[in-house]
């Protein structure tokens, strides 16, 4: 019985494919909600407290998802390389978004699952602020006024990351503020794919950090 139910519930993939084809002729405001509903089913299955899958089935499901994820990333990379060689210019923002958004999300989820909230926020904050600070230092002349202005937020974020264990609430506020500012800045001026990319690699990690530091578990504060 368990197996039959699992097989039935796995038919969602067929439903998604059917909906994609059926949605071709439907208005966007109908087709997109249906597609989202179809995709919500496996997410719900993953997060509901009592899964219909036993531990071995869950392990196999996670393993297959893991492999599929890396296959997807490899495919995107191959397509980007082919695009570059065919047009001799950088691939469009869409590809960077498709590549970096899931990688960033996977990294964040892994770190926050492996460590307690304050530790995870420290590591994520250190990593992202260091990367962006380095990028800024290499691409801008910090001896100019513009260079200093561009580098200051990342120095602030790096400082907040280093002090996260000592003053988590203050660091959390800094992360929240800068995440919000970046979100507001990126809301306009860029195409939708670049907006999603910038939100996911810039605003989202710091938003994760801010929540973790503003709402740590009680035992982490002692």
């Amino acid at each position, binding site marked *: 019985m*368990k*197996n039959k139910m699992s097989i039935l519930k796995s038919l969602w993939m067929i439903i998604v494919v059917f909906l994609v084809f059926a949605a071709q002729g439907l208005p966007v405001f109908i087709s997109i909600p249906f597609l989202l509903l179809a995709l919500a089913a496996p997410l719900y299955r993953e997060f509901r407290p009592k899964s219909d899958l*036993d*531990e*071995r*089935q869950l*392990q196999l499901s996670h393993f297959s998802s893991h492999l599929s994820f890396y296959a997807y990333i490899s495919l995107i990379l191959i397509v980007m390389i082919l695009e570059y060689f065919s047009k001799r210019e950088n691939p469009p923002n869409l590809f960077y978004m498709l590549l970096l958004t899931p990688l960033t999300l996977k990294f964040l989820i892994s770190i926050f699952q492996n460590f307690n909230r304050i530790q995870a926020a420290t590591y994520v904050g250190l990593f992202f602020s260091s990367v962006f600070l380095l990028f800024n230092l290499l691409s801008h002349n910090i001896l100019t006024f513009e260079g200093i202005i561009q580098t200051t937020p990342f120095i602030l974020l790096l400082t907040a990351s280093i002090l996260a264990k000592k003053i988590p609430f203050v660091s959390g506020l800094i992360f929240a503020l800068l995440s919000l500012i970046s979100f507001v800045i990126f809301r306009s001026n860029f195409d939708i794919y670049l907006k999603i990319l910038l939100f996911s690699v810039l605003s989202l990690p710091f938003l994760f950090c801010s929540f973790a530091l503003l709402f740590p578990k009680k035992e982490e504060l002692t």
Partner: protein
Amino acid sequence: MKNKVRHFRFLNGELTQQELAQKVKVTRQTIIAIEKGNFNPSVKLALKISRALNTPLEMLFELEEEDLN
């Protein structure tokens, strides 16, 4: 990890794999995988199997030499 789940399953009124699976709330395929040594159950599942077969855990499951390295 070695196990004697199959041996003790037969000793417990010749329980079938399906019956044991239902008792511990997993699929028959999971019991098959455990008996073949292709899947190591969690502590929780191992304890459930131990209780279902009225057998101490240490008699059901045994660490192999390579598991200790």
